[in-house]
């Protein structure tokens, strides 16, 4: 078991090292990077929009359900919702969902390219396939996932407000007041630090499993599943580690 871990970890590091070489054509690498930004950013916006709204709404209702004491002002609900969403739900929950959406896409795309010999074709042409195929995906994910997390944060809080107002738990003014109470900008930095880390994990782990697929269609499916599972576990592990270190 430990040996398998070290084998994969060593190979993973070698893959990362192999990405760094002088691009054969900077223009095509840039085009590839922009394409990945669109695929990851725009392609995942829909799911992020939906989960963020409901995540905020549910948080508001559940917080209100638990804060029943008459001595706690209603605006505290907004404060709790804000911090829960910024500190945990927007970066971690969104990243877990994105690991499924983006991670499986990256792993299956690269796996299919490997099986259909497209990666070999690029290699024969004299192209550094790790640099051309993997690096743009990692850079795009590291750039776009924090953007999606930021959007998820805004949408989550907005969803929380709407759910609170619609259910009559608290008024819009109470929610806005609660949002401004004891706001710490450091929490946003913490959320962004987590999202950069999670973005890197999702893209690099998925690329590793996809790039090294051997076999056929069945193995592409297995690689896809493994990529998502390993990404999720690493996200949760890093979530705990970063929380312990940074908070």
């Amino acid at each position, binding site marked *: 078991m430990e040996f398998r871990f070290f084998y994969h970890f060593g190979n993973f590091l070698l893959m990362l090292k192999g990405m760094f*070489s002088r691009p*054969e*054509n900077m*223009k*095509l690498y840039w085009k590839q990077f922009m394409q990945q930004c669109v695929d990851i950013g725009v392609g995942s916006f829909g799911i992020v929009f939906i989960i963020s709204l409901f995540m905020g709404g549910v948080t508001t209702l559940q917080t209100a359900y638990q804060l029943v004491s008459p001595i706690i002002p209603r605006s505290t609900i907004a404060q709790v919702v804000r911090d829960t969403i910024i500190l945990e739900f927007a970066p971690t929950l969104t990243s877990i969902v994105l690991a499924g959406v983006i991670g499986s896409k990256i792993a299956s795309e690269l796996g*299919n390219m490997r099986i*259909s*010999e*497209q990666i*070999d*074709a690029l*290699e*024969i*042409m*004299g*192209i*550094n396939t790790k640099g051309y195929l993997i690096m743009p995906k990692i850079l795009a994910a590291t750039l776009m996932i924090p953007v999606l997390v930021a959007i998820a944060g805004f949408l989550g809080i907005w969803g929380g407000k709407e759910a609170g107002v619609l259910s009559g738990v608290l008024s819009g003014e109470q929610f806005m007041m609660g949002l401004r109470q004891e706001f710490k900008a450091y929490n946003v930095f913490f959320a962004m630090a987590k999202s950069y880390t999670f973005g890197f994990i999702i893209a690099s782990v998925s690329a590793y499993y996809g790039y090294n697929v051997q076999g056929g269609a069945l193995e592409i499916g297995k690689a896809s599943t493994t990529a998502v599972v390993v990404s999720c576990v690493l996200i949760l592990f890093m979530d705990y580690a970063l929380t312990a270190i940074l908070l």
Partner: protein
Amino acid sequence: MIELKDITKGFGDKEILKGVSAVMESGKVNLIIGASGSGKTVMMKCIVGLMEVDTGTILYDNQDFTAMDHHAKKEVRQQIGMLFQGSALFDSMTVEQNVMFPLEMFSKDTLKEKKKRVEECLERVQLKDAAKKFPAEISGGMKKRVGIARAIVLNPKYLFCDEPNSGLDPQTSLLIDQLIKELTTEYNITTVINTHDMNTVMESGDHIVYMYQGQKQWEGSNKEIVFSKDQKLNDFIFASEFLREAKEMRQLDMFKDNKWKDQLVEQLKRDSQK
């Protein structure tokens, strides 16, 4: 010219290539033939550098490919064109973009010049009308031809084809064989084909290497193969009754050519002794 000197390759305890030496000449269609598991594909992957050999050397025009660093290997690879068994076309690109890709990556030509070159290549493989189609919209034979167009777009010195006829009907196979043969002589390319197709062997094989259990069992031309005494080769090439009859007919045809007369007489003597 590509020269293999005593190359070996193994995976774990299993030795796949057991000291193979051969010379692939330029301007000729060089075939690697052999039964499944004989080491053909591993040999081709070693030649193009997709796999590292364990021992031995591979020389590209007297340059030791096996001793080159990553950068030097990349330069040699830019002179290599390869047609893959499954064509290996990029799914997300049109036929035109597939052929254009190597030019976009490596050529410093203007866009107009690149487009002209792509048009020339597509015309050469008779696929100008399919330029805007995606790989999923064209047939297997067309995919192979796009693969050939992509392989020759940078005017390669070496062309590798992995089973170019697999999954194709006999007529399309013939078309692909003719195209590869014409391109080889036209541009004086060193072409190496890995094949099972007996039609390719008899029609295009200027130089044939027969692999048997990881070793070079026989080497010669498509003319010489008809007179080969090698039992393993004969069992492999002329496996069916139909092919054995075709072999005899070919021998009779070649009898008219005095150059092959002696070899045929020798063959007949040997057969009568049996």
